[in-house]
């Protein structure tokens, strides 16, 4: 059909719709954008005036290390947590079912959702680094920005895909919130986000290495780390993110459902029982 809306246009509209719902859900915007910034403020207040002098390279603030780590953390929650929770609630409310009944191809739905998560992640990371540069003397090395961009895209893509997986597996909207926090926050502690532990216990290091967040955090930190002398290209960490991205996509592919769980199928059975003579 000639006048049928194009896939790109539909994806663009879905992207804008997802952005609108994000900004109009204050709690999501708060936890994604403001919450990680508060950590930057808090850490800088705690360790604030401590400067790290690195011979031959200059004097750096602790924010030089915290800001990129917290930016990566914000990217993860903008994608993993937001997409997962949003999908699960939209399914509960029957909004996914409504999309399913309309001529919206599922690739346009998915593309809009992923693009929106990545876009919000980009805003959150940029805001974090900008605040770092302006208020906390964070410096940015231009020659490592390409590595930062690649790391960002792979990280955001990986966690967006895991967000779709979370949204697919979570039984209800409420459960998705609990699952998101119960998975993301502990992993964040094992992933050098809040505290860079010099000599971590083996099990903690293992957890950090298994999950993608630490790879993301470390690669992103390296792209802003004044101690790094190379271009901060980190194929090993990138491979880990890609692998988790594939896992997330496969789970979403297999388990994504448009229909709400509490559907008429169950009410039919209940209705029948109620009707049958006692």
């Amino acid at each position, binding site marked *: *059909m000639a*006048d*049928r*809306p194009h896939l790109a*246009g*539909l994806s663009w*509209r879905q992207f804008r*719709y997802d952005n*609108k*719902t994000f900004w*109009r*859900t204050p709690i999501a915007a708060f936890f994604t954008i403001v919450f990680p910034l508060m950590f930057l403020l808090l850490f800088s207040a705690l360790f604030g005036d401590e400067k790290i002098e690195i011979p031959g390279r200059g004097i750096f603030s602790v924010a030089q290390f915290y800001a990129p780590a917290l930016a990566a953390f914000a990217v993860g929650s903008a994608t993993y947590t937001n997409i997962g929770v949003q999908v699960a609630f939209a399914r509960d*409310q*029957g*909004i996914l*079912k*409504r999309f*399913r*009944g*309309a*001529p*919206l*191809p599922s690739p346009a739905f998915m593309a809009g959702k992923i693009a929106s998560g990545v876009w919000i992640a980009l805003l959150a990371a940029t805001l974090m680094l900008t605040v770092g540069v302006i208020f906390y003397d964070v410096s940015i090395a231009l020659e490592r920005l390409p590595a930062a961009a690649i790391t960002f895209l792979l990280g955001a893509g990986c966690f967006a895909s895991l967000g779709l997986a979370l949204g697919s597996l979570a039984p209800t909207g409420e459960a998705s919130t609990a699952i998101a926090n119960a998975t993301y926050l502990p992993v964040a502690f094992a992933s050098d986000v809040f505290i860079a532990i010099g000599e971590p216990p083996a099990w903690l290091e293992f957890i950090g290495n298994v999950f993608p967040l630490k790879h993301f955090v470390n690669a992103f930190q390296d792209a802003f780390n004044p101690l790094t002398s190379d271009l901060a290209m980190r194929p090993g960490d990138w491979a880990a993110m890609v692998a988790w991205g594939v896992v997330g996509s496969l789970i979403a592919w297999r388990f994504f459902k448009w*229909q709400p769980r509490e559907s*008429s*199928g*169950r*009410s*039919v*059975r*209940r*209705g*029948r029982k*109620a*009707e049958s003579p006692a």
Partner: protein
Amino acid sequence: MGNGQRVTSPAVAAIEVKGLVKHYGDVAAVDGVDLTIETGEVFALLGPNGAGKTTTVEILEGHRDRDSGEVRVLGFDPASESRDYRERIGIVLQSTSVIPELSVREVVDLFGNMYPKPMPTDEVIEIIGLADKADARIKTLSGGQVRRVDLGLGIVGDPDLIFLDEPTTGFDPSARRSSWSLVHNLRSLGKTILLTTHYMDEAQNLSDRVAVIAGGKIVAEGSPDTLGGRAGAGARVSFVLPDGSGDIPEPFRVAPSREGIVEVATATPTEDLHRLTEWAVRRQIELERLAVMRPSLEDVYLAITEENEDG
């Protein structure tokens, strides 16, 4: 499968269902439904909760898979989930929320743009009577207003076939009337409409044909006026029994109710009424509250569903 007995008419039916079966676990929610709905028809599917109404409709919409049976809707198999099919149908879902963060205009616009030839957004908003709420967020609307947005999303794609699953549940009487006139308008545009409803006046007012589903089967089918032998069913004649009516003609020589009302069922109301009124006129009696009643669609519906509950 096709047994070849049915003579296919040149006009292709909008919906054709043969032997539709759907189980949930051991329970057959739909147990061999046959249904033909012609193009341009308003068809109401009636039945108690849990009778298989919504399951049937959801299979036709493509929201649910069937276990067995033949289903063709606008020439498509809804289970194929094709985009071509969904471009030609409009679905007004039961108890599903509309994106609460968006405004009426935004949500109509979002869905309209998925269709090849959508109705203009403002026109849809006008039709559903929410022009003054166009920029209000969905979450600020009343239940009835959200239901009207629902209706708007069902028609924004200018579909050939519209599924209306209990479209006016929770509406106040005036909102119901305006939704009815919307359905009348859609019908006059040649749209086919499959409606489910709990309200018999709604089915009576809107539909060309009705079917009653109970226990997963179609147990009665016909026009609202002929369903369940309604047209040929007996009438009831009632009036307040006047004083001194010892010689009242048969079949009205029965004991009145406590309020003094005589009510008699009759298969020959014309003849009986003639005898009654002749008698009354001769005696110069005005029969108070004289009424002749036909069974309403609701009476017929209740009789049919009760019958099938016992069975």
